[in-house]
């Protein structure tokens, strides 16, 4: 068994052990296995990374076993480890391990402790399968698997109907995207004849595959990506997914799984390089999503909802980067985002922990002194996401803004404008969150206030690590590291001059957001209330998320229901099919009434008929055969 | 052709005498060992008087087995007034015969070249070499299971045809117990088959002749210690001995499915049980204890790890192998008797629970782990 297989199998072992034996062997065992397996996987990943480096960055391929042969094509469970995979695998295992450790503190009182860790390990297994898979097929298995794990974990407290429904919603919305993904796979398989991703990329870049299919394939795969990475129009599941335990939100719905779409597009960059139309669509969808989610986030009061919409918005940023061909930059943002968003979510978890389960930021305030570690880490991560230099978010966001303007593959001033505005909004709502949560007067009930306490070291330690990473992570230039694999797009002529303008602009934007939030929400947030009062209509729209769920309900669900009720059921089923069948059945019944005399109910006679029939057919066969 | 026949007959004769000998001696060993274990003396009175003299050969009571046999032969054969005398009469044989047949596939020695034993024999036998096994079948271990399946039918027929409630209960118990444990037995052996990659018993034994890790004999028990334990337990349950003797539990069912049997018919049941002890010993030896192999010994003689070697003539090798096999079988039998006199009996529901909820999953787990390990090692 090779090292790559080992990486994948370790969390699976954890899943099996925890799932089968966890409840019997106690929390110590569960924690040890649950955290040990990801940690070992992380260690092995580092070893693989060093091997990769030692081998002069030549990709490592490994076939675990041949799944099946269909005709000449063999479908293998094979793994592929190159620079892109290395980055993703390190994020997944590293952040994953940290979040596992955090969970030991966060979930300590839960009665389904073992089940939780089993699911978490299962998720990690599928995520690694997704990231390490060499062929689209393996990737797809991982893709579906993380969907399953996400469903299980969102609905982890399935006793609560709302949470169970959120799990279902995530699952079903993802299926829509998966349908696109599957179609894309079919098209690829029929066009290229293989599902091996290196092969596919080569086929598309060398032009061996028909060029017309590139955009189609790109779009179909992108539909899958919108589902998993929560882009318009399929982003609606992600905010609801916050029903799961907070570490899950951090791991799955911020750091790893939702970036799978980004990874997919980056991995299939060979296709998108030849599909300018698809790339344009991606950029447009990304920008729209980013803007829309950011505006919604302005008006949310649930701490996790704000973070969820911020995630959607950041994913939009990544897709803009993908759309303008800056794949390395998108992965860079995935990487920095993993740190600061995980830190934010875990910090939020710590806050919720401290607040005995309260999630409404209107009922918080003044927490900075009571939970200082959480506050500092949260503030650091907020600064990072807002893009304050020299924190990691600054670098990646700045790169995205730069390529949104300057990329030779679709950069424009319009795109830059939208993204810059979104960045401003990002800084604003993040600092709003920070202010409402940690500053000002305490607005919570007395008992809750009395109980506020700092989280155990297993949680704060993780927070500190993540905060440090989100502070310094930006100095590692992922785009240049990935340059040999996915080249950065050429810069439009005459744009070099604007580079420092963009850098300066993005710093200014971040600071503006900070200052604005401080201005509006400082003290008792009276100014904000005034603004809200004067824009009540807009606020309601934003607070209700543009009524997207309702729109979906009105324009998709109800018509569908009506069609299935009126057309398919009443007309098709009852009248046509049933009518025909009933007619036939009555004919048959009348005939059968006569034939049923043959049915004597005596098994002997039936057997005798068989005998007679056999003799007859044998005789006929001998005579005529 | 004729040489083959002669060799076969010799082997068959050897096998039957070994089995019968074990059957007879084990009846004595069982009592004697139980006595020694519990600080008693045990059977020691049966003797043979040399005719015409007063010299009595007691030999530690070794003749008790013979005395038992004689007693059973001479006793009156009571028959219940049953509704199916045919099933009643046939049942003991259905139990007894398959037990003997199982030995056909067990290799009890390496290979035999009569010409090398004694020069003049080559005139008749030529240079041919025979493996010391009655039937060299490629389905070896399957045959064993097939025949042990037959005995279930015998036990059930016996219990049913006795027209006795105790017998019927015993038969029902025997049926379900033996089927359950046969499954476990099969599963444990499957792991071994994975390790050896064959079902041929002779090939299995040959694979166990080497050395692993430099000093350990490459016996099955080294590779599959867990399966060995399960196998032994399941085999004892198959044989319906304590602690699994529910089908014939004296305190509940008198003698279970053979309550209504007397004289030699009953003796056949008992004899079958004792021979099956030997068969289990032989199987366990073959599968897990390296069969006729002594560590460091090959067809040429001994070769120790240090480099020292002792050459041996063919005859000595053959005798050593035969002796080794018999000794191992005897030790395993003795171990079974040790178990029988140590452990208390299960309750009936516990027996089946034990099979299905404890041993079956364990055997399955063992199989899975073995499969994974074998796959990992081979690939």
């Amino acid at each position, binding site marked *: 068994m090779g090292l790559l297989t080992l990486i994948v199998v370790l969390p699976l072992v954890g899943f099996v052990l925890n799932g089968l034996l966890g409840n019997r062997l106690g929390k110590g065992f569960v924690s040890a296995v649950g955290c040990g397996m990801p940690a070992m996987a992380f260690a092995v990943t580092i070893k693989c990374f060093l091997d990769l480096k030692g081998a002069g960055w030549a990709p490592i391929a490994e076939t675990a076993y041949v799944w099946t042969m269909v005709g000449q094509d063999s479908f293998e469970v094979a793994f592929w480890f190159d620079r892109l995979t290395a980055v993703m695998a390190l994020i997944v295992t590293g952040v994953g391990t940290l979040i596992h450790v955090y969970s030991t503190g966060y979930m300590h009182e839960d009665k389904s402790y073992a089940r939780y860790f089993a699911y978490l390990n299962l998720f990690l297994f599928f995520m690694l399968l997704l990231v390490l898979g060499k062929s689209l097929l393996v990737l797809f298995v991982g893709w579906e698997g993380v969907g399953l794990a996400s469903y299980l974990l969102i609905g982890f407290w399935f006793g609560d109907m709302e949470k169970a429904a959120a799990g279902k919603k995530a699952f079903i919305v993802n299926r829509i995207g998966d349908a696109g993904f599957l179609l894309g796979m079919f098209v690829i398989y029929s066009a290229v004849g293989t599902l091996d991703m290196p092969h596919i990329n080569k086929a598309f870049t060398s032009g061996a595959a028909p060029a017309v299919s590139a955009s189609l394939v790109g779009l179909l795969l992108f539909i899958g990506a919108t589902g998993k990475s929560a882009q318009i129009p399929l982003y609606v599941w992600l905010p609801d997914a916050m029903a799961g335990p907070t570490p899950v939100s951090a791991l799955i719905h911020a750091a790893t799984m939702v970036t799978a779409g980004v990874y997919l597009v980056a991995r299939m960059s060979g296709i998108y390089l030849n599909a300018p139309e698809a790339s344009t669509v991606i950029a447009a969808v990304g920008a729209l999503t980013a803007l829309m989610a950011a505006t919604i986030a302005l008006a949310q009061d649930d701490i996790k909802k704000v973070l969820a919409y911020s995630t959607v918005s950041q994913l939009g940023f990544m897709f803009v980067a993908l759309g303008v061909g800056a794949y390395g930059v998108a992965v860079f943002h995935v990487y920095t985002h993993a740190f600061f968003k995980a830190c934010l979510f875990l910090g939020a978890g710590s806050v919720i922990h401290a607040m005995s389960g309260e999630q409404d930021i209107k009922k918080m305030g003044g927490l900075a002194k009571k939970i200082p570690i959480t506050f500092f880490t949260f503030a650091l991560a907020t600064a990072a996401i807002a893009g304050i230099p020299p924190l990691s978010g600054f670098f990646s966001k700045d790169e995205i803004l730069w390529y949104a303007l300057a990329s030779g593959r679709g950069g424009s001033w319009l795109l830059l404008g939208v993204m810059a505005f979104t960045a401003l909004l990002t800084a604003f709502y993040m600092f709003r969150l920070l202010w409402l949560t940690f500053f000002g007067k305490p607005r919570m009930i007395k008992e809750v206030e009395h109980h506020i306490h700092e989280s155990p070291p297993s949680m704060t330690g993780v927070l500190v690590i993540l905060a440090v990473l989100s502070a310094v992570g930006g100095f590692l230039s992922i785009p240049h590291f990935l340059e040999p694999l996915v080249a950065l797009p050429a810069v439009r002529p005459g744009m070099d001059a604007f580079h420092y303008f963009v850098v300066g602009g993005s710093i200014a934007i971040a600071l503006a957001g900070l200052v604005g939030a401080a201005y509006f929400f400082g003290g008792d947030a009276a100014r904000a209330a005034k603004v809200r009062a004067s824009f009540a209509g807009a606020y309601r729209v934003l607070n209700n998320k543009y009524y997207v769920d309702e729109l979906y309900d009105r324009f998709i669900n109800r018509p569908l229901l009506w069609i299935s009720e009126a057309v398919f059921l009443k007309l098709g089923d009852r009248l046509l099919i049933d009518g025909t069948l009933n007619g036939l059945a009555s004919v048959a019944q009348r005939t059968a009434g006569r*034939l*049923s*005399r*043959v*049915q*004597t*109910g*005596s*098994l*002997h006679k039936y*057997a*005798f008929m*068989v*005998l007679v029939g*056999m003799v007859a057919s044998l005789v006929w066969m001998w005579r005529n055969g | 052709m004729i040489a083959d026949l002669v060799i076969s007959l010799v082997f068959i004769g050897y096998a039957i005498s070994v089995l019968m000998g074990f059957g007879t001696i084990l009846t004595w060993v069982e009592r004697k060992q139980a006595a020694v274990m519990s600080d008693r003396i045990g059977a020691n009175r049966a003797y043979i008087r040399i005719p015409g003299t007063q010299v009595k050969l007691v030999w530690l009571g070794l003749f008790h087995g013979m005395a038992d046999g004689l007693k059973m032969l001479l006793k009156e054969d009571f028959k219940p007034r049953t509704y199916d005398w045919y099933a009643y009469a046939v049942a003991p044989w259905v139990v007894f015969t398959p037990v003997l047949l199982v030995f056909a596939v067990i290799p009890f020695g390496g290979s035999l070249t009569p010409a090398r034993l004694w020069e003049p024999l080559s005139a008749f036998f030529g240079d041919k070499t025979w493996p010391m096994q009655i039937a060299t079948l490629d389905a070896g271990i399957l045959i064993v299971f097939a025949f042990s399946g037959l005995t279930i039918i015998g036990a059930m027929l016996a219990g049913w045809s006795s027209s006795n409630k105790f017998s019927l209960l015993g038969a029902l118990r025997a049926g379900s117990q033996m089927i359950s444990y046969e499954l476990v037995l099969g599963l444990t052996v499957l792991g071994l088959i994975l390790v050896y990659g064959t079902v041929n018993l002779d090939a299995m034994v040959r694979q166990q002749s080497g050395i692993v890790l430099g000093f350990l004999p490459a016996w099955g028990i080294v590779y599959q210690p867990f399966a060995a334990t399960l196998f032994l337990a399941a085999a004892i349950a198959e044989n319906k001995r304590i602690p699994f003797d529910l089908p014939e539990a004296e305190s509940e069912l008198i003698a279970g499915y053979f309550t209504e049997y007397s004289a030699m018919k009953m003796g056949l049941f008992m004899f079958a049980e004792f021979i099956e002890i030997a068969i289990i010993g032989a199987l366990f030896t073959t599968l897990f204890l390296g069969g006729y192999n002594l560590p460091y010994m090959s067809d040429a003689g001994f070769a120790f790890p240090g480099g020292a070697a002792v050459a041996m003539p063919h005859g000595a090798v053959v005798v050593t192998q035969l002796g080794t096999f018999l000794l191992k079988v005897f030790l395993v039998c003795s171990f079974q008797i040790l178990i029988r006199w140590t452990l208390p009996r299960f309750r009936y529901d516990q027996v089946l629970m034990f099979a299905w909820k404890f041993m079956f999953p364990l055997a399955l787990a063992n199989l899975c782990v073995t499969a994974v390990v074998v796959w990992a090692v081979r690939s």
Partner: protein
Amino acid sequence: MDKVQMLQVLAASLFALGLTGVIIRRNVLVMLMCMELMLNGVNLSLATFAHTMGSAVGAVLVFLIFVVAAAEIAIAIPIVLLLVRRKRTLDIESYSDLKG
């Protein structure tokens, strides 16, 4: 008549005997056993062909039939037990409830 032909004839006659048994016996269990006999006849035929042709196809089919037979009996016997529970008889003639 060489041995292959003989075995084919035996297979056919086992099948025929089984079928006849199903027709003429009244006891449900005996009928079931006769069905097993029919399966055995088929098995013998397949195995003989496998032996003659030296191919594994026949043997594979025999194996599948083994499994099917085991499955069949595993369902049939509980059904018979249920039937007997209802009507307290094994006579198949009592179970002609499906008369049309």
